[in-house]
């Protein structure tokens, strides 16, 4: 069912092949999708990747493992802290470094703030794809609040490099705590407005309901994880399935839907904002005192030979690092399994035969970040 390139070349079918190419407003970056059109219907789709490839994995084999942290933030710049968290956890597991309690809380709070920021940007950009111009202004207004809060602590707005192996680079003060609490209260107050302005909108519902339906079996065959999988009714969230860090201490639900279409993943992401707020509140309430760096972190991180995994719940799905080490401090091989890579691979099967405008809305619901796909 994938596009057969040879058939197209001799043009017997007179089908019109169009490039939804690298520079396109709705591909959220430089993704190129070849659409084989029959009137308004995209009979075949063929995503072409590689326009945002930046050799991250080759760079990992030339630098000491500790100094790969900035690269993790540049793979998925919307969930940078969560990528840092996954990588820090990978090295701490490999070298057996115990992280103090306060650091775990700081990591969870900042990661959840980063998840909210990523979902807000998805919210604005997705509705911009569907033609609504106002919601992105509201979403970015909230997002700027988070950027200010995180900027005081991490020093940057987008590509954070805040976590270190064994701890974090700067302690959070009570200005951070008060502004975070104020932000939580403010965002929770704006949910009804978002609900009326957008979720209840009949145009949005017509554009999203019954578009791009997924079933748990399709997700298993393609390796789709994250809000798309939860949209089909499977409550699989790494924070609950393989509780890393201190997520087991907080009680939060995993929002799921049943139909698995675009509206389902839309609502799942929207409700995850609320769950992240709950986690932040609980974490802020029980924030312990203590050091922010593990006691003895060797300067040259000797990773014992062997292969190590670390998987965390990125905003788009399951992010897992796979490190093969030969005993030195430079990784022998580092593979990063990014969620959007598998999420995008369902497009040729799910969007086959759709109208072009539905293809745009289905791909928008995948919440793609292209440099994360091309690595």
């Amino acid at each position, binding site marked *: 069912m994938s596009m057969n*390139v040879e058939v197209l070349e*001799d043009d017997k079918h007179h089908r019109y092949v169009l490039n939804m*190419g690298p520079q396109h407003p709705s591909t959220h970056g430089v993704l190129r999708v070849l659409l084989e059109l029959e009137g308004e219907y995209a009979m075949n789709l063929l995503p072409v990747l*590689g*326009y945002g490839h*930046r050799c991250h994995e080759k760079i990992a084999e030339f630098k000491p493992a500790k100094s790969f942290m900035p690269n993790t933030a540049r793979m998925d710049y919307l969930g940078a802290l969560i990528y840092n968290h996954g990588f820090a956890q990978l090295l701490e597991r490999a070298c057996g470094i115990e992280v103090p309690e306060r650091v775990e809380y700081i990591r969870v709070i900042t990661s959840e703030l980063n998840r909210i920021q990523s979902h807000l940007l998805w919210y604005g950009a997705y509705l911009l794809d569907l033609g609504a111009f106002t919601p992105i*202004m509201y979403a*970015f*207004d909230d997002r700027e609040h988070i950027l200010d809060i995180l900027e005081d602590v991490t020093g940057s707005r987008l590509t954070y490099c805040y976590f270190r192996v064994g701890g974090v680079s700067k302690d959070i003060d009570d200005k951070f705590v008060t502004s975070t609490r104020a932000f939580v209260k403010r965002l929770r107050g704006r949910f009804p407005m978002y609900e009326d302005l957008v979720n209840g909108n009949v145009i949005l519902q017509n554009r999203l309901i019954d578009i791009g339906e997924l079933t748990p079996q399709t997700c298993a065959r393609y390796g789709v994880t994250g809000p798309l999988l939860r949209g089909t009714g499977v409550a699989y969230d790494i924070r609950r399935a393989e509780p890393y860090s201190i997520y087991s201490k907080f009680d939060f639900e995993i929002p799921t839907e049943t139909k698995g279409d675009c509206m389902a993943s839309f609502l799942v992401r929207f409700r995850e904002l609320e769950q992240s707020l709950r986690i932040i509140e609980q974490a802020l309430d029980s924030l312990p005192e203590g050091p922010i760096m593990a006691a003895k972190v060797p300067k040259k991180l000797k990773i014992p030979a062997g292969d190590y995994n670390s998987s965390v719940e990125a905003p788009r799905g399951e992010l897992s690092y796979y490190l093969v080490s030969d005993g030195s401090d430079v990784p022998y091989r580092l593979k990063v399994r990014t969620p959007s890579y598998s999420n995008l691979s369902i497009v040729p099967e799910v969007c086959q035969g759709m109208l072009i405008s539905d293809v745009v809305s289905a791909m928008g619901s995948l919440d793609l970040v292209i440099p994360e796909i091309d690595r």
Partner: protein
Amino acid sequence: MDEQKKSLLNVHSYTKECIERYDGASSQQTKTSDAPPLIRMKLSDAIFNLCRANSLWPLTFGLSCCAIEMMCCGMARFDMARYGAEVFRPSPRQSDLMIVAGTVNRKMAPALVTLYEQMPAPRYVIAMGNCAMAGGPFAVEANYDVVLGVDQLIPVDVYIPGCPPRPEALIEGILQLQEKITGKRFPLPQNKMPKGA
């Protein structure tokens, strides 16, 4: 009829051209005509430059992380609209400023040059971020794919350092471009901003 058909994924017609430009061999041979305007008057130039500088329509050309900071610039808080630059045109036909926001790699280079050439004549380029300026964090020995600097492919007017640069830096870049087009820097609207804004 078969041989001149291009395979779908085949090499873009500009790949050879980009390789030459990248190695410095050819410099913009693809320019077919470079005639100045028919009527060249100082007054008309001043008027047109004033209009061009104050209504720079950028092309939505977000490649990676800098694209998010470019979006923040377009939003309410940093608001490029104050300088006439907030209309992001998806197609190069209606845009006269190309903000290269992100990393250009060898597969993207032909598309970049094609888009640059498909923009109407008074076209300006801002290289936003270290990647567009000189390869940024990917200008390392292990890099086999990233183009180190966009100015080897297309002429660049303003460079904005930063990884990603702050939205204020992008606005400063646009003000620098306006100064480059008209020769003088406009009285910033900020001077008249209400206290505490």
